[in-house]
């Protein structure tokens, strides 16, 4: 990693909309590289981002980006940060090229038209650059948003559900672009998404958020060690029957079912490894997989969310 300094930091950040508490003493920080912000719908991810961008004022606590106050020094932050919002809306009568030219002007880029053309080409919209934005598909709008976020050559890019409307090729291109920008130009990223396998390919830090609070955060590798110790993943032909059996075993500390996969936190690894195949054989089930979890982001997320809800 090129830089491990924290770029984003919130301290006891609280925000309510009427009676709904969207953020509840949120203490978020990033890893200084490519960071992921994950959580279920309504967890407070977009509200957090909107506070960081200066769209919303915190009720309590503080939010800083590059040590700048997100509400009072929003303009300075926006000079350094590119932002792609979820389902962005643009002035639909403009052509894509004209829109980007205006954004380049806002960034005081010399030769804005040239820069706009370059960005349209970079995101694969060169052929559609003279078409009105209203004729763009959802995927094209997402690419235009990405070009808009990149045009000012920001130090930090915040992406809110960036792959939501992209086809598989577009997703791969985007992930490669993130990797390249971070590796070659030290650009930092904060990526909010639901698609954890994709996030795992690029991010080194993850913050898990639920009901407006941080459930856990840290380097993916550290979290992997923390949550994978003595936790096993079991896939069988009859998960419910195995689950019922394991619940009564003394070597199992905790066991639960997620989408037909059994997760078990074990006390005695040796007994567990011996007994599970025996139970499966006794009950005439098929054991498809039995392995300790190795820090797959999806699994870390599953465990942390389960612990939070207990």
């Amino acid at each position, binding site marked *: 990693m090129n830089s491990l300094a924290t770029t984003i930091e919130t301290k006891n950040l609280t925000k309510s*909309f009427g009676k709904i508490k969207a953020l509840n003493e949120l203490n978020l920080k990033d890893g200084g590289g490519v960071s992921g912000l994950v959580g279920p719908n309504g967890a407070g991810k977009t*509200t957090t981002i*909107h506070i960081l*961008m*200066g*769209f*919303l*004022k915190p009720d309590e606590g503080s939010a800083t980006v590059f040590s700048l106050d997100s509400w009072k020094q929003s*303009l300075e932050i*926006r*000079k350094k940060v*590119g*932002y792609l*919002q979820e389902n*962005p*809306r*643009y*002035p639909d*009568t*403009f052509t894509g090229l*004209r829109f980007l030219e*205006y*954004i380049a*002007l*806002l*960034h*005081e880029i010399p030769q804005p038209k040239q820069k706009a053309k370059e960005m349209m080409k970079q995101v694969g919209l060169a052929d559609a650059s003279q078409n009105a934005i209203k004729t763009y598909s959802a995927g094209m709008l997402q690419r235009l*948003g990405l070009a*808009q*976020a990149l045009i*000012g050559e920001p130090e930090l890019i915040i992406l809110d559900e960036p792959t939501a409307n992209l086809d598989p090729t577009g997703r791969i291109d985007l992930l490669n672009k993130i990797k390249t920008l971070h590796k070659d130009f030290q650009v930092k990223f904060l990526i909010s998404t639901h698609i954890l396998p994709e996030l795992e390919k690029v991010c080194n830090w993850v913050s898990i958020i639920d009901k407006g609070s941080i459930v856990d955060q840290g380097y993916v590798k550290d979290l992997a060690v923390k949550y994978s110790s003595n936790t096993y993943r079991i896939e069988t032909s009859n998960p419910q029957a195995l689950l019922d059996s394991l619940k009564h075993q003394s070597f199992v500390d905790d066991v639960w079912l997620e989408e037909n996969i059994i997760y078990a936190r074990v006390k005695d690894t040796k007994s567990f490894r011996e007994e599970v195949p025996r139970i499966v054989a006794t009950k005439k089930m098929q054991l498809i997989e039995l392995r300790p979890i190795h820090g797959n982001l999806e699994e870390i997320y599953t465990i942390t969310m389960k612990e939070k809800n207990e």
Partner: protein
Amino acid sequence: MHWELEEIWRFPALELFVAIAVFFALNTPRSDITYTFSNFQLFIIEVILVAVFYARSVASCIEKREILVLLSNPIKRTSLFLSKFLTNLLIIFLICASVVVAGSYLMFLEPWDTKIFIGLLIVFINILFLSTLSFTLSLILKTTWGGTILPVIIYFGLAFGVPQNSDFPRVIPPTGSNVIFDYLTRTAYSQYTFEEFIVALVFPTIASIILLLVAFLYFRRMEID
């Protein structure tokens, strides 16, 4: 401001409004200069133009969340505020001024006749007041329909619903329906003194400045989500 101008330029209804303005100018009685420069038809054009333009430029921009795209880039809120307000004001004034100029041409007035410039000033003050009210309401309501309809209701409420006040007969005219907007014209062209004309100018100007300040402070602190 370029952004705003281009957006307005691409607004397909603009040509329609210009056509309406020219139509009204050609159909205005030419005998009464007061009627020509502040007639009810021109007032309606002003009200509709102002309500539609500001609702489209401000309320719709917030409602559709286009403003998030703008504000995620390095633009000062003050610049955005001023560009939205001034661009629409300028365009609406140019359209309505064309009615005044066309009317004066049809009345065979000399191009440098002071009556034309007084007429333009009156139209500008009327539009300024209507614009600040519409702009403020659009910012607060944040919905295109609300931002279009409520200002129209308030404008007509002001024009027809303000009760006559016998204590201030020289400030609020004792008769007539267009108590606020018509009065400025009457003080300019009728038997009123210059001082009374200034007083008539000051009322909508101060009201506009106050409304604009309210809108500015609101926009500076406005949360967008």
